[in-house]
């Protein structure tokens, strides 16, 4: 080492040369020995090794193993500077956190691996955090676990929860906004708004056609005075209102097509939706009843032509949503006779309870 140190002043440019050449390639590139020698910075293999050694000692390079073959990655100069100031303990911890990469490492696992006492560990982590080398985040999967990972990494989906979560919680506002936009997009693709009078045909003079049209017109005018028996299924009398129907041969949107659409619209402040994120959102909207699945991957808008709020016989009666339904008995304070909800619903008086 001393020898190398002695050589250092003359070789400074060589170190920098090697480092710069490495830095010129895309960030995160991994260099094997043959890559580094191909840069033709060092004259001999020994010299190259000493250069690499020096860079590693300066934390400017990180040595790794791939298939039992050594390989290297370069570090940012500023980060290397910080790393040089670390104590031995801190360094060990840093190595472990570094290993976990985006998955992060749980503080308890860290302790088990390093065998450090809790106070030492805490102290080291604190100092690492203060140097802005690591960050601590909450795991979504295990909300009570504190995870550590390198500060420049974004936590993996496992612990951070993907696109729709912020700091462990679902970003409800964003989800709502995005799902509305997606909903509209799906509706545009799969539905069509038809005006009421889209097929405004004139009746022919055949008797059947006349009766037919008569019923048609009466249905539209809602002429209830005239009790002419009209067909059991009269055309819906929605006046000028338009109505949504499914398109006859749509290209059904899928998670990937909607993700592309959303990213193109660029409404999420630079965030990009991946296919899995979109899948999650669409599944949720299907649960919600806004969309329905037509095949394994395709979705369409769920239509409900019945706008009135009717559910079924049970819940439309007062009993269905009664808060004291389970207490209600044949007689006693809560019964059909004394029921205030029935009274309200029917507009009649119920028996008073004294």
């Amino acid at each position: 080492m001393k020898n190398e140190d002695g050589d250092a002043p003359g070789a400074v440019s060589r170190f920098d040369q090697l480092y710069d050449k490495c830095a010129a390639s895309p960030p995160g590139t991994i260099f094997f020995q043959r890559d580094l020698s191909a840069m033709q910075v060092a004259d001999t293999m020994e010299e190259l090794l000493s250069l690499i050694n020096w860079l590693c000692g300066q934390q400017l390079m990180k040595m790794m193993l791939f298939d039992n073959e050594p390989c290297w990655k370069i570090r940012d100069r500023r980060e290397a500077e910080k790393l040089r100031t670390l104590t031995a303990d801190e360094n060990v911890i840093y190595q472990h956190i570094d290993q976990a990469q985006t998955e992060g490492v749980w503080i308890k696992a860290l302790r088990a691996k390093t065998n450090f006492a809790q106070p030492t560990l805490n102290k080291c982590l604190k100092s690492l955090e203060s140097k802005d080398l690591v960050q601590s985040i909450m795991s979504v999967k295990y909300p009570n676990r504190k995870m550590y990972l390198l500060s420049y990494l974004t936590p993996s989906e496992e612990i951070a929860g993907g696109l729709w979560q912020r700091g462990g919680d679902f970003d409800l506002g964003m989800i709502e906004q995005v799902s509305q936009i997606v909903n509209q997009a799906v509706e545009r693709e799969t539905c069509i708004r038809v005006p009421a009078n889209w097929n405004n045909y004139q009746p022919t003079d055949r008797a059947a056609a006349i009766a037919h049209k008569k019923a048609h017109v009466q249905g539209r005018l809602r002429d209830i005075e005239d009790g002419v028996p009209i067909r059991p299924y009269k055309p819906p009398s929605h006046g000028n209102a338009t109505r949504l129907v499914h398109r006859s041969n749509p290209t059904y949107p899928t998670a990937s097509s909607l993700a592309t659409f959303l990213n193109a619209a660029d409404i999420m402040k630079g965030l990009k939706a991946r296919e899995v994120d979109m899948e999650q959102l669409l599944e949720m909207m299907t649960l919600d009843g806004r969309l329905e699945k037509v095949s394994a991957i395709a979705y369409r808008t769920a239509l409900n032509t019945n706008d009135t709020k009717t559910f079924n016989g049970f819940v439309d009666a007062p009993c269905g949503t009664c808060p004291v339904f389970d207490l209600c008995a044949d007689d006693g304070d809560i019964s059909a006779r004394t029921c205030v909800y029935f009274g309200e619903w029917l507009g009649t008086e119920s028996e008073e309870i004294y």
Partner: protein
Amino acid sequence: MSYTQRETPVLAELCSFLVQDIYGELASRVYSILARYGRQNLHQLVKASYLNRRQITLGLVTLVQSHLVFHSSPVSAVTAYEIDWQQSYALVRFGRVVKMVEDRFGKNASAIVGNLLEHGHTRIGDLKNAFFPPQDPIEDSEDEGVNGAGTKRKRTNGTHVNGTDTKVNGMSNGSLDEADHGAGDKLYLKTVDEFYDAIQLLMQQGWIMRVDETQYLSPGDFDQVALTQVLDARWNGQMPSGTKDKGIVAREVLAQKRSTRDAWAEPPQFATRKRKVNNRDHEQPNKRLKVNGANGWASSGGDGDFSAAEEQMPIRINREKIAVAMRTEQLVRLVEQRLGPTTARIYQIMLRCVESQVRRCFEEWPDPPIDSKKKDDEPPSPPCLYLVTAHDVEKQSKDFDICEGLDPHAVSKITGRSLDKSYKMEDPVDPIDLGHHERLQLIHAHIENLARDPFHFATWHSRAGHSQWQIEFEDIAKSLIQHEIENTVSAKKPQLGLKLIRALKKKGRLDERQIGIAMMMTAPDIRAVVNDLAVQGFIQTQEVPKVDRREAKHSIHLVWYDRQRAREKLLHDTYKGMIRIIQRIAFEKEKVQAVLEKAERTDVRGNESRFLGRDELDMLNSWKEVEERLLLQLFREDDLVAVLRDFCGPLVSA
């Protein structure tokens, strides 16, 4: 115990109310004893009540006549009585059945069905005499026995039943009172021929079946009888000992039960009838029958009559068929909600096309699944397919606008006319002018909409008849149940409840965090809903300890959803809701009792406006409104019961 025969206190109460409503207090007293104590013989019944033996016998006769109780007299020395819960509940559907029959087969048939419903069963000949009293006055005395027992049931003698008749008729919707006046100036059943036509049609369509003494056996007795028959026939009356043989016996017992039951609904060969009734023709029964009615009385003496054996045959309504019809109505309503009225109309036509082939909604005694290990030489019977072609539908869709409810682009493509920018037809199309092929294509487009719906109302089968479609009732029935449960939950807990149930149904057992991810919400927001729904019994919670000591902190808390449990819970609640409605009706009636009594006086009836004061009239009107509203709700709850109970067997592995 038979699945359909499991009764709950709530159902018992509900049925007691229904019996009281229709058959009066005595029958209902006897009924409620049976409801409380279960299977009883006459002696036990007397002991369990304050009524004397005569009164109880009278009550029982009414109940037996209307098939509300099973009795074991065909097989045992001491007759035991047991309530038929399905039939008892069916009392609430009387009006609906008459309506459904009228929709399908016209007034003639509905008059017959109405009569049969109120009297339980009658012989065909007696029923004929009720509608067409014999001219000979001497025979009038015989007419008393219209509802006399079938030859087999000695317990029921005519007089007793007729004792209840007046009451029964009092409750009827008027059609019968009219019918009893004979063939005067009524609008339906003008001739005996029409009567026979209607009976024959109803029997061929499976709405009416013959009365058989085995129908009076409770499920337990029925099982015994079937078992004895099987053992006598193949096993020399001895129960075999081997497991494999026992399995075979069980299978044969089920087959025996099915064949007995199927024999009930088998229409007799109407050999004496010259004209065959065309099954497909029943859409316009009125028209057809009128043509025949021109023959008038003249023909009734000759070829029109049934043979003497047929005249003697006692008949009753087939309950299973009613469930089938209710399923049709329910599905059509659902389609109307989801896809609009026109498509619903087409679906109605499709369903009615297959209705005559559908005997029942689900097999009550299905064969147990065959072990995959041993593939016997007997192949499993091919599943029954219910097929409809677009061609069938097209024939019956002339009276409404089949262009409605479709994407205008599809219509314009089929008819070859162009659309303008706002999707309006530039050259409007009158569906009546369209050619046969174009109409077929339009129908096809509607059916495709049905098939594409998540409910899969129809499934493509083959290209026969332009396009042939299959209706997979079982899957649809299951989705219907799910749909109603979801409806209920979303009414109780808007938004979140529905989402939660669906998430659990899709993903199975989940812990809190997983629910959160599925619903994309935070755990605290969900907790309240989970709690509420668990308390109401729609979802279940479960605690799995991770360590020996059961600690909340060291346990996994799971939430799950079981369709069958939720279904039974909702069914139970619905029964209870129906009780409350009936009680409320009674209460509302009590409030206006005085006015009602006055209004029902013979001199006041018809002249209400003259004899009643203004406030009395107001009270009467508002009571009518209230009653109507409550009854309507009662029938809607009955719809729900039908969905939950009658369309699909127990969902054991769901």
